[in-house]
């Protein structure tokens, strides 16, 4: 985030918030400062957020930023998909050792779940290459993306972690990539359990057909069909909105392609043996056919997946647009008229390439509540979030609209206004927002998973780990560990084997 802020002074200059009696000042539209991030999420009525990809080596800084974000409860997912040690264990078939290592790393970084970003691809990017299918060989490692995915999925099952593996698949953001997406989901089908084992994130960026940018089409129906048929996978939208934003992912090669595409400034990062990252500012334009198709793909996916428990509302902030556009996305999902108003302004060629026009479904208030709150909490395995039963946190948002009297399909503008400024937001039983103003700034918790490993294995791999650290890393292991005192309000979640 900080690199993004440095790269984008022009993003801050027109979006400035002055301090008030309870809040501090801040700037930023797509990459807001930490405090502003907290206030804005709270004003929208959200009280739990997750940083979905952090390179383990940089997680100390991630926690510093998370500590700085007021009010919200937080968690972060370290990336594992290109970690040398994970790839070494998995290629040697040492699944249990890998599980012990994952446990160690989650404890060491105070992470919450296993995140994979372009498995194998970022390591290949260190050699100027990328992987293009699940069966490409990762350079210098005897392993393929398929084996990494299956290996870490088995590890996740072995450790019984609260969240499924969180996957940003290969070939993201390329025309014709929907096949890779379906292959990725399908390669884990035989490992299914009674709960989802795979979360495919920002699926909008993964649902394109066609051969190139000129022939891009929406393949949302195919992906939605798959998600409807099988129960082992959940997805989130990654909806784009037409605005100026900053794309930042751990997927270095994808960011480079984006930089070649729009010619904008580009920042690239290589995180030693773990991961990489890239940042490119991007403006989604309503007049651009490809952007218009992207806009429809996200909405199609959300509307074609039958159960709101399987698809969640996100913008992949800030990649598809800042999170402050959630109210608009909700209006598109709840009102066909709102969608048609945008459809009238995007290029006509979009209709031929997508099927959004033919979808009449309009989501209800309860479906939106599931997509934005209950479903996401369930997928994350946060038992005390996303519902109001006994034992739940008293995190409540009250909006100035009455579902009994408002007609969302016609009054969608009212709806956007209502969802932009909550009447009341309660965090852990305390009123933090009243009439769209933050009235109290509290400190949220940081959730992390203290997984149980086979302790004998853990002690067996430690000496090896120490020698690997000396060999591979530029930092010492003692400096790498994030100790519990480092977190503002630590809230470990204990798991059992």
């Amino acid at each position, binding site marked *: 985030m900080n690199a993004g802020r440095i*790269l*984008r*002074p*022009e*993003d801050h*200059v027109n979006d400035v918030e*002055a*301090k008030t009696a309870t809040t501090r*000042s801040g700037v930023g539209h797509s990459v807001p400062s930490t405090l502003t991030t907290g206030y804005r999420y709270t004003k929208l009525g959200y009280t739990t957020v997750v940083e979905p990809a952090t390179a383990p080596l940089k997680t100390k800084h991630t926690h510093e930023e998370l500590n700085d974000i007021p009010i919200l409860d937080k968690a972060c997912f370290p990336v594992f998909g290109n970690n040398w040690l994970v790839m070494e264990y998995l290629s040697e078939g040492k699944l249990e050792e890998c599980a012990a290592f994952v446990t160690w790393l989650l404890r060491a970084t105070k992470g919450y779940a296993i995140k994979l970003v372009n498995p194998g691809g970022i390591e290949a990017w260190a050699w100027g290459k990328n992987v293009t299918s699940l069966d490409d060989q990762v350079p210098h490692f005897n392993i393929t993306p398929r084996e990494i995915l299956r290996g870490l999925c088995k590890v996740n099952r072995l450790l019984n972690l609260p969240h499924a593996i969180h996957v940003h698949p290969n070939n993201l953001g390329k025309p014709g990539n929907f096949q890779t997406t379906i292959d990725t989901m399908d390669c884990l089908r035989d490992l299914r359990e009674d709960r989802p084992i795979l979360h495919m994130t920002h699926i909008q960026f993964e649902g394109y057909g066609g051969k190139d940018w000129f022939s891009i089409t929406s393949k949302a129906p195919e992906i939605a069909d798959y998600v409807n048929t099988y129960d082992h996978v959940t997805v989130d939208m990654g909806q784009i909105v037409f605005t100026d934003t900053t794309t930042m992912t751990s997927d270095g090669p994808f960011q480079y392609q984006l930089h070649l595409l729009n010619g*904008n*400034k580009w920042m690239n990062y290589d995180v030693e043996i773990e991961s990489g990252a890239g940042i490119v500012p991007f403006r989604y334009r309503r007049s651009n056919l490809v952007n218009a198709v992207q806009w429809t793909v996200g909405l199609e996916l959300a509307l074609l997946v039958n159960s709101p428990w399987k698809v969640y509302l996100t913008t992949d902030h800030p990649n598809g647009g800042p999170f402050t556009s959630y109210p608009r996305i909700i209006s598109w999902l709840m009102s066909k008229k709102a969608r048609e108003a945008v459809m009238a302004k995007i290029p006509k060629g979009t209709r031929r390439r997508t099927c959004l026009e033919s979808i009449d479904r309009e989501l209800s208030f309860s479906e939106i509540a599931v997509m934005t709150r209950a479903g996401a909490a369930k997928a994350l395995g946060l038992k005390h979030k996303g519902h109001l039963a006994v034992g739940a946190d008293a995190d409540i948002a009250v909006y100035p609209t009455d579902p009994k009297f408002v007609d969302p399909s016609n009054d969608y503008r009212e709806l956007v206004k209502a969802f932009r400024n909550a009447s009341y937001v309660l965090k852990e039983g305390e009123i933090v927002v009243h009439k769209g103003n933050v009235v109290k700034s509290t400190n949220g918790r940081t959730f992390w998973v203290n997984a149980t490993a086979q302790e004998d294995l853990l002690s067996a791999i430690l000496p090896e780990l120490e020698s690997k650290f000396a060999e591979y890393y530029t930092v010492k292991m003692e400096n790498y560990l994030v100790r519990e005192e480092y977190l503002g309000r630590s809230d470990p979640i204990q798991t059992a084997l």
Partner: protein
Amino acid sequence: MNSIYLKRFRVKWLNRIVLELKRQPRVPVDSKTISPNVLSDKPLEEIAVLEIWEGNRQIGLGELFNIKGDTGGPTSDFHVVVSGDTRKIRCLGYRMSSGLLKIEGDAGMYVGEEMCGGLISVDGSAGSWLGSKMRGGSIEVFGDAGDHVGAAYRGSHEGMTGGQIRIHGDCGSEAGSWMSNGTVRVEGNAGMFPGVHMCGGIILIDGNCTGRAGAGMTGGMVIIRGRMETILPSFSIEQIRKRVKVREETIEGPFYVFRGDVGGARTGRIFVNVATNPQLIWCEKYLEAW
């Protein structure tokens, strides 16, 4: 050359408001509300409570300025006069689209930022970012201007896209960065990097230039009538022209015409006066070689 300001000033201005600075502010003041667009249709009492920021404190316009005059007429005939030492007042004429703004002393930073019409005249000198991201209208400065005249904001690729800026004195570095249209005329000397990354429009410098004109340019013209020690190595000589036309005016040369920047599309041009730059005579042999 006639002054843009004086030409239009012959019109009889009926509606006129004078903002006289009461006291010298200790910290910079963000006064985005001082422009004919905002002030023309409001009664004086309402103007006195318009929000401006003095440092991190929000105050009314009336707390900092004595406000006199009449309002209520059409914006295009409206005349705002700001007097006093306004070096710490920023964003005067922000997004103004018509009317006239006259600053009698020195102005602070960001005068006429994002303006799209009307006329701003500064009797003294202006600070940095004069007319940055300007889209139309005219600015005339009788003193000097700071850095980043008509420039894009830091990190942004959208500079001046129209209108004209005329500076009777000198200007600082990076005038017209990322500029895509419009005219900047500096009658004095210019600092480093005039026209950096520019892709259209004209920068005319009557005096000398410190150097590195047109770095990274992909279009437009930079004309230097005074002396510039060297040309960037990423430019190549194309021809010698006797004169060059800037909008309606013809500027007599002769000029060396350089094309560049080779790092980009090589479609920008720099005109350097032959008479004042004998040190550039070396390039003539490359001209013959063509």
